[in-house]
């Protein structure tokens, strides 16, 4: 994991008190965000948390009902068009052009940025290689697998050599192999100094990729820091998951004793959080209970902050 570096450069995204209301519901409710140059920033939250709405606001596609927003130094939504010339977008839902082949998709998307002519061909060859889609230039979109479509969508977002790449659930619905491919590309982008903002439901993904992330629920930022800082600040380092009914009963008894053990019931699981697991594990072993002992992760942070599981 990378160490957080203080950056002197002005942040690429600054949001203060962003709000959005649909009908009576505030789906984004006073969000403050700051994304620095070169940072990989994550927005982690359950369905309906407001992640897509926040990204759409950054792109100037959803006018906020309150708050201030600057992206790449441009006031949004007033100068969203100018900002978008330097942004790459991977939307949540597939928007590849089904009237075109793989290559035509890239050429056409490039034309939306005013990119055409001689310089474009090598760039497109480069992007096709990056997506591992060489040899499929002339394949129609309908004939691509889900993973290929996502890869193509990712390189399509890079056609304008963006300074900021915005990704809305880039790996949802992909198999592990396809996911690893995308992760690798995202890390490479980050290593070349591109700033990235990604939404995800996946803890593991956020923990692996993001330098910093904001946990959001019901339109609010509950906490924002590096994954490690969040875990250290909010959660005891050890987690014991009790997986069956007798184990849960035993766990309740252990937790009731106090002594630095915090219990949390999540569905049919009982989670015990503690800094000193030794004695607990011995007792559970002695009684022969089934359990899983693991380090604390972001999911635990989320559970603690919101009181419900992430994937709902």
């Amino acid at each position, binding site marked *: 994991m990378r160490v957080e570096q203080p950056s002197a450069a002005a942040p690429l995204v600054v949001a203060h008190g962003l709000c959005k209301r649909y009908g009576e519901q505030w789906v984004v409710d006073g969000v403050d965000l700051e994304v620095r140059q070169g940072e990989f920033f994550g927005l982690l939250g359950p369905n309906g948390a407001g992640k897509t709405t926040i990204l759409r606001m950054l792109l100037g596609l959803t006018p906020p009902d309150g708050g201030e927003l600057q992206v790449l130094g441009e006031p949004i939504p007033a100068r969203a*068009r100018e900002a978008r010339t330097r942004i790459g977008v991977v939307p949540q839902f597939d928007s590849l052009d089904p009237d075109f082949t793989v290559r035509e998709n890239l050429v*056409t998307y490039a034309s939306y940025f005013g990119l055409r002519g001689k310089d474009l061909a090598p760039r497109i060859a480069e992007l096709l290689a990056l997506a591992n889609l060489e040899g499929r230039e002339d394949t129609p979109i309908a004939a691509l697998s889900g993973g290929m479509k996502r890869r193509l969508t990712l390189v399509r977002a890079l056609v304008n050599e963006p300074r900021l790449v915005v990704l809305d659930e880039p790996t949802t619905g992909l198999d592990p192999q396809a996911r690893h491919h995308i992760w690798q590309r995202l890390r490479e982008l980050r290593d070349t100094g591109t700033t990235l903002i990604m939404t995800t439901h996946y803890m593991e993904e956020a923990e692996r990729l993001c330098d910093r992330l904001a946990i959001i629920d019901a339109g609010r930022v509950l906490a924002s820091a590096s994954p490690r800082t969040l875990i250290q600040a909010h959660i005891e380092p050890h987690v014991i998951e009790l997986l069956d009914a007798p184990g849960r009963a035993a766990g309740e008894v252990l937790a009731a004793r106090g002594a630095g053990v915090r219990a949390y019931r999540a569905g049919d699981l009982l989670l015990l959080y503690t800094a000193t697991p030794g004695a607990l594990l011995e007792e559970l072993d002695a009684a022969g209970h089934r359990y899983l002992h693991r380090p604390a992760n972001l999911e635990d942070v989320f559970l603690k902050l919101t009181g419900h599981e992430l994937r709902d």
Partner: protein
Amino acid sequence: MIALPRPSFRSLAVWQRNLRVWRKMLLPSILGHFGEPLLYLLAFGYGFGRLVGDLGQLSYVAFLASGIICSSALFTASFEAMYSAFTRMANQQTWNAMLNAPLVVDDIVLGEVLWAATKGLMSAMAILLVATAMGLVADWRALWALPVVALSGFTFAACAMVVTAFARNYDFFLYYFTLILTPMLLTGGVFFPREQFPEWLQGLTYVLPLPHAVDLIRPLLTGGSLHQPWLNLAVVVGYGLAGLISATALIRRRMIC
């Protein structure tokens, strides 16, 4: 007060995208442009024309050919701005992809209207070619009809785009066809002179754009004289601008929310 459209040169990228798709299906597209209107021209022109005889100096086929050039531009442009544009807006996410690039709704709407007008012009040109080959066109003045056809196509497309802005599915377009386009077609002077109608109906339907397009285009093709060209132009341009302004405002509200 609605904000006026502020499109940029990037509208052309939208137009070009559609041209690129059209070129991929060149043969069926062109066949479509020639096919149906040609059949109408032959069947009605000769079949029906025998019964009707001439209209003043003009043979019925020549009268009809100039009318069908207008109605073909009308229907081609309207179709494109409704069914095809709706597909790109609602089903294919084409517009959403554009909005992730530095295009704005204003560019997209103008680009789509320009494209639909282009298709209208292409269909009209196909018939013009046939009509010329059949000796139904008076003289070189007919070339002046082309910019007027393009302008009319723009107007028809812009009006259709307003309907698209409200559409939730394809069935919605039937209202526009049944309530607006078909009555306008039948009373617009395409198939027979408007003078056949009672005066009140002539007056009532003269507020629509098609009769004005016909009044401009037919004389240019058949060698007649223009009666109120400035009024005709004003109505066509007026509908075009009003359509573009409202469609842009409505689609902004629909997509930027």
